[in-house]
C-alpha cells in the first residue's frame, strides 16, 4: 500500500492527554451517554416549507403511537417565562423562538417535539406529524440576493482610494465560498432534568457551561446557581457549541411538560440545520502595489448569508486590516438574510474566509510583479505594529513562520513561473499563504484541592472540546507548583466549578492559564500560612518565596526549611486544602496589540486530464507564543489544516433554490477531507513566549491553523496549472473547465 509508504519516524512518543485513557476506554461520558432515572426521549419534527406560517399541526396519528407521552407545539407548551410574549422573546436574543411562533423561517425548522418512553417510539411518532401552512416565497438563492444588499463600512477607512488609483500593479477579482458545516463527530445532545420546580440539571454538548447556565437562568427566571450544566467530555465543537441552540431549550421544555428527565439527541441531518454553519460568502478584493512591490492600497468588500430571524456577522474583512502595512485600506461588509437557519462562528470565523480572497490576491500580484510570493509578503508584513490600532504587537513572528515554512517545504525548488513542473499528466505546484488572528484573553477562575499526600486537583468550569485544555492546565500547574504531573488531576466542564468563559476564539488556554497560575500562587500562600505556624521563616511569605514539591513545602530553594504536607495537614487538622483565584487581562491590553499567526505552504499535484488534486505535502508553521503542550498544539494545527483542505477542495453544503432544502445533508453527501485526502502535514512552532499576554506566554492556536490554508492550496493549484480559481471548493470540474 503506497499510502502508507512514508512512515513518519516516531521517536520518543510525546506524552498523552489527561483525558486520553477515559476517552479511549469509554469511561469518559459525552452528554448523550448519561442516564437519569425514569428518563424519556424527545424527537423534533421539522417544517416541510422554508417560508410562511403554520395553519395547523396534525398530531393525532403521532399521539396514537404506543409510548408517546406528550407532543409540544407552539400551541401546547409549558410556560417559559423569558419567552412569555413577543417583547420578551426579542429581548431574550435567543435566536430561533422554537415552539413560540407560528412563523416558518427555514425548511426543517422544528414545529413539534414528541416525547415518548423510547427513542424509537419518539422517532416513529415524529415521522407521523404533518402540518398545513400558508406558504410565502422563500429567499434562499444567495447568488441572486446578495448583489441587491448595500455594503456598509467595516472599520474606519485608512488613507484614500485616490491615493492608489494609478498603482502600476493591481489585482481585482471576486471570490466566493460555499456554505460549510462544522459537523463535529459527537452529535449535539441535551439531557434535561428538573430536580425541583426551579432546580435544573443539564448534560449538554457545548463549548461553555456558564453560558448555557446564564442563558437558561434568564429564560426560566431562576437563579443561575439552581442550574448545573455538565459538559465534561466534548467530541469536537469547531464553534458549533458556542451558542445555546433551540434543541437545548426544547429538551428543557419537554422535561417540564412531562415532569421527567428528557434526552434529546440531534440526528446527523439536524446537525446540518440546527447548530450553525459557516455562511456562504461573496468577496471582491482590489489591491495595488508600486513597482518595488510595496502594497499601496486595498479595497475589500464582503457579503455573506444570514437568517431572516436574526443577523449574524462573520467579520470577513477584519483580516485585511491586520496583516500588511498598507496606507490606503477600505473594508465594507453586509449580511444577506435568507430563509435558512442562522450561521455561526466556525473555526477561524471571518478571517478564514477573508484570508482566502486576500491571500489569493497577494499571490496574483506576486506573479504580476515577478516577485517571489514569500519575499513579497515579508516585504509588506506589519511585523512591529498593529496597523489598525497603531499599538506595537506584544510579540509577532509571522516573518519567522514564513522563513521556517519555506525551508521546510524546500521552497527554493519552486520554479518561478506557473505550469513548469510536470510528472506525466500530473502538474506540480507550490503555494503559500498567511493567517492571523487577534489573540484574546478573558476573565476566568480556577481552584485547587490538595490532599494530604500532595496530590492536587485543578478545577475550572471551562470545557475541553478536544483542544487539549485539560492537558495544558496540567502542564501549567506542574510548572507553577513543581508537583509531579501524575499527582495533578483535572476537573472541568461543570458549571459548579470556578467560572470560566466558553472555549472558543483561540482564547481558552490564554484565558485559563492566568487563572491556573493565580490559583497555584494562592495555594502556595495558603500553605505558607499553615507553615508559618511551624516555622517563622514562612511569615508574610510571597508566593515567589515558596517552592513546592511532591511531598512538601520549602523556602526559596528546594529542601530549605522543608515541611512535609503530612505534617502541615496533621498540625492544622486539615483533610484538604482548598483555594480558588481569578485572573484576567489588564493594562497590557492598552499598551500592546496581541496576535497569533501562521504561514501555510503546500505542494500539490494536479492531474491535468481529470482535474484530480492531490496534496503532496502541507507545512504549517505557527506563532502561538509558548507551546504549553507540543502534542496537543500540533494536533490543533494539523486538524485545522485538514479543515482547510476540506474548505479548499470539497466542502459545500448546497441548497435547493426552490425548496430551500439542504442537499446531501449527511456524512455521505457532505464531503469533508478523509485521511486519504490529507498528506503528511508537517507542523512547526516558533515557540517564543509572549510575556505580556498571560503567565503562560501562550497566545492561542485553534484558529490560525485554518486561516490562509485554503489560499495556500489554491495558490499551489495556480502554480501547477496556471488556472486561477476563485470559487471554493475547487472540485475536479472547476479544474477541468477552469
Amino acid at each position, binding site marked *: *500500500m*503506497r*499510502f502508507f509508504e512514508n512512515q513518519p519516524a516516531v521517536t520518543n512518543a510525546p506524552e498523552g492527554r489527561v483525558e486520553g485513557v477515559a476517552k479511549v476506554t469509554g469511561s469518559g461520558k459525552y452528554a448523550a451517554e448519561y442516564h437519569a432515572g425514569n428518563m424519556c426521549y424527545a424527537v423534533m419534527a421539522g417544517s*416541510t416549507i422554508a417560508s410562511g406560517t403554520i395553519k395547523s399541526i396534525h398530531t393525532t396519528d403521532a399521539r396514537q403511537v404506543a409510548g408517546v407521552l406528550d407532543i409540544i407545539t407552539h400551541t401546547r407548551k409549558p410556560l417559559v417565562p423569558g419567552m412569555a410574549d413577543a417583547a420578551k422573546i426579542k429581548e431574550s436574543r435567543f435566536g430561533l423562538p422554537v415552539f413560540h411562533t407560528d412563523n416558518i423561517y427555514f*425548511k426543517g425548522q422544528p414545529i413539534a417535539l414528541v416525547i415518548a418512553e423510547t427513542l*424509537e417510539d419518539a*422517532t*416513529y411518532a415524529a*415521522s407521523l406529524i404533518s402540518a398545513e401552512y400558508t406558504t410565502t416565497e422563500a429567499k434562499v438563492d444567495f447568488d441572486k440576493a446578495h448583489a441587491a444588499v448595500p455594503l456598509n463600512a467595516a472599520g474606519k477607512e485608512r488613507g484614500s482610494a485616490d491615493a492608489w488609483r494609478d498603482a502600476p500593479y493591481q489585482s481585482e477579482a471576486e471570490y466566493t465560498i460555499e456554505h460549510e458545516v462544522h459537523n463535529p463527530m459527537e452529535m449535539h445532545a441535551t439531557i434535561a432534568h428538573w430536580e425541583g420546580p426551579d432546580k435544573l440539571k443539564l448534560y449538554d454538548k457545548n463549548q461553555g457551561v456558564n453560558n448555557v447556565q446564564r442563558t437558561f437562568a434568564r429564560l426560566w427566571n431562576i437563579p443561575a446557581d439552581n442550574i448545573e450544566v455538565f459538559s465534561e467530555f466534548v467530541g469536537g465543537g469547531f464553534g458549533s457549541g458556542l451558542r445555546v441552540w433551540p434543541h437545548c431549550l426544547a429538551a428543557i421544555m419537554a422535561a417540564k411538560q412531562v415532569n421527567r428527565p428528557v434526552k434529546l439527541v440531534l440526528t446527523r441531518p439536524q446537525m446540518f440545520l440546527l447548530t450553525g454553519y459557516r455562511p456562504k460568502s461573496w468577496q471582491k478584493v482590489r489591491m495595488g502595489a508600486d513597482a518595488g512591490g510595496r502594497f499601496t492600497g486595498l479595497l475589500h468588500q464582503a457579503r455573506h448569508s444570514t437568517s431572516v430571524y436574526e443577523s449574524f456577522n462573520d467579520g470577513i474583512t477584519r483580516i485585511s486590516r491586520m496583516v500588511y502595512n498598507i496606507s490606503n485600506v477600505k473594508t465594507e461588509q453586509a449580511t444577506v438574510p435568507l430563509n435558512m437557519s442562522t450561521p455561526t462562528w466556525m473555526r477561524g470565523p471571518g478571517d478564514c474566509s477573508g484570508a482566502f480572497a486576500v491571500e489569493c490576491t497577494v499571490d496574483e500580484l506576486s506573479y504580476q510583479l515577478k516577485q517571489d510570493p514569500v519575499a513579497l509578503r515579508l516585504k509588506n508584513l506589519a511585523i512591529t505594529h498593529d496597523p489598525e490600532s497603531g499599538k506595537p504587537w506584544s510579540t509577532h513572528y509571522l516573518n519567522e513562520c514564513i522563513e521556517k515554512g519555506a525551508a521546510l517545504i524546500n521552497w527554493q525548488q519552486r520554479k518561478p513561473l506557473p505550469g513548469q513542473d510536470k510528472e*506525466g*499528466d*500530473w502538474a506540480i505546484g507550490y503555494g503559500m499563504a498567511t493567517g492571523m488572528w487577534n489573540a484574546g484573553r478573558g476573565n476566568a477562575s480556577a481552584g485547587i484541592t490538595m490532599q494530604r499526600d500532595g496530590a492536587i486537583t485543578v478545577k475550572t468550569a471551562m470545557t475541553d472540546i478536544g483542544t487539549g485544555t485539560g492537558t495544558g492546565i496540567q502542564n501549567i500547574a506542574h510548572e507553577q507548583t513543581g508537583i509531579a504531573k501524575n499527582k495533578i488531576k483535572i476537573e472541568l466542564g461543570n458549571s459548579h466549578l470556578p467560572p470560566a468563559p466558553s472555549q472558543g476564539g483561540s482564547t481558552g488556554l490564554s484565558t485559563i492559564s492566568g487563572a491556573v497560575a493565580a490559583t497555584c500562587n494562592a495555594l502556595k500562600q495558603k500553605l505558607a500560612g499553615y507553615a508559618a505556624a511551624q516555622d517563622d521563616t514562612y511569615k508574610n511569605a510571597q508566593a515567589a518565596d515558596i517552592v513546592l514539591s511532591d511531598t512538601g513545602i520549602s523556602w526559596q530553594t528546594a529542601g530549605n526549611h522543608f515541611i512535609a504536607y503530612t505534617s502541615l495537614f496533621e498540625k492544622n487538622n486539615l483533610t484538604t486544602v482548598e483555594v480558588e483565584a481569578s485572573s484576567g487581562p489588564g493594562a497590557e491590553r492598552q499598551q500592546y496589540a496581541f496576535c497569533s499567526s501562521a504561514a501555510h505552504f503546500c505542494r500539490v499535484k494536479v*492531474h491535468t*486530464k*481529470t*482535474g*484530480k488534486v*492531490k496534496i503532496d505535502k502541507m507545512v504549517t508553521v505557527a506563532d502561538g507564543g509558548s507551546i504549553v503542550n507540543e502534542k496537543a498544539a500540533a494536533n490543533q494545527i494539523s486538524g485545522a489544516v485538514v479543515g482547510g483542505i476540506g474548505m479548499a*477542495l*470539497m466542502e459545500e453544503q*448546497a*441548497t*435547493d*433554490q*426552490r*425548496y430551500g*432544502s439542504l*442537499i*446531501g445533508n449527511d456524512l*455521505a*453527501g457532505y*464531503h*469533508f*477531507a*478523509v*485521511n*486519504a*485526502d490529507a498528506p503528511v502535514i508537517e507542523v512547526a512552532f516558533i515557540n517564543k513566549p509572549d510575556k505580556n499576554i498571560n503567565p503562560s506566554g501562550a497566545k492561542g492556536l485553534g484558529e490560525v491553523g485554518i486561516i490562509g490554508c485554503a489560499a495556500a492550496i489554491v495558490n499551489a493549484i495556480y502554480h501547477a496549472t496556471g488556472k486561477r480559481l476563485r470559487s471554493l471548493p475547487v*472540485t*475536479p*470540474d472547476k479544474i*477541468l*473547465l477552469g
Partner: protein
Amino acid sequence: MNNFTYTTAGSITAALQHTKRHPQAMYIAGGTNLLDLWKYNLLHPQTLVDLNGVPGYHTIEAKEGGGLQLGALVTNAATAYHPLIEQRYPLLSKAILAGASAQIRNMATNGGNLLQRTRCYYYYDGDVPCNKREPGTGCSAIKGYNRIHAILGASEHCIAVFPSDMCVALAALEAVVQITGQQGKRSIPFADFHRLPGNAPEKDNALQAGDIITSIDLPAKEFAHHYSYLKLRDRHSYAFALVSVATALELEGNEIKEARIALGGVAHKPWRIPEAEQLLQGKPATAESFAQAADKLLEGAQGYPHNQFKIELAKKAIIRNGLMALHPETQLPGAQPSA
C-alpha cells in the same frame, strides 16, 4: 421508522413463501442501504425477511469450464479479497474496493449491491416531488441541483444515476444474474438487469416482486492482464463517483483484440455501448483509439446546468483509463489516475 415483524428465512422457498403471504415484506441482506432508506422514512416494510441464514449462497465457487459463481450473500469485502477474484478478475476486485468504506463493504452483500437505490438528493428528501419515490409527482432534479445526475439515457421523468461501482465492473465482465422467484429460476444477462428510467423510473431493474438474487456468475473471460478501474470523485475515498470507468482489454502486442468499457455515475445503469467496443477491435491501444471509443460512448449525452462537466470528464476518463489498463502494475491505490 415503523414497527415491523422480523423473520429469518432458512431456505429460498421459505423466503419466497413469506413474501407471497406478505406483499409488504422486504428482504434484508447487509442492510447498509435498506436501513438508511428506512430511517429516512422512504421505505416502510411491514415484514422483514432476513436472507443471511439461507444456506448455499455464502461462497465463491469455480465453475466447470471456467467462470466463477459469486454467492449473493458473500460480502463485498470477502469478494474483493478472495484469491480467485484477486487473481482472475482483478477488475472486479478494484471496482469493489473503490466503493463505500471498509466498514460498509464488510456488511454489504453482492446481491444487495446490485439492488442499492440511487443517491439522488431528491429521492432522499421525502418532502419534495420524485417520480422514483412517488410515481407521477415529477422530477425535482431536472430543474434542481443536478451535479451527480445522469448525462446518458435519462428521461423527462428521471435523471437519477445508479451509484454502484461493483456493477460497473460486472457490466464490463458480462456477468449473469441468477434469480429464483415465485415462478422458479431464471437468469438475466447483466446488460438487461438494470434498466433505464423511461416512464417508469420507480423500477430500477428487471426483478419481479419476491424475486431473490441467488448468485452472480462470471463468464470464463477474465481480463486479468489488461484492466483498470478509474473513479473520479469529490474526495479521495468514501464518495460516490462523479464518473467511473471499468476498462478490460485483450491485447496482442499493442493491438486490441477485444475491449470492454463500462461507465458508472453517468446513467440509470452501468453504461456500455457495444459499437464503441467494436470500434477498438484491431486498433492500436493508444489515446487516439480510446478517444474514438469515448466519443461513441458519449454520443447523445445531455448535460444539465450542474453536471455539464461530466461529458468532458467522462471522455477524458475513458482515454486515461484505457492507457492505465495497459499497465495495471503501475496503478495507484484508490482507483485514481496514475501517470
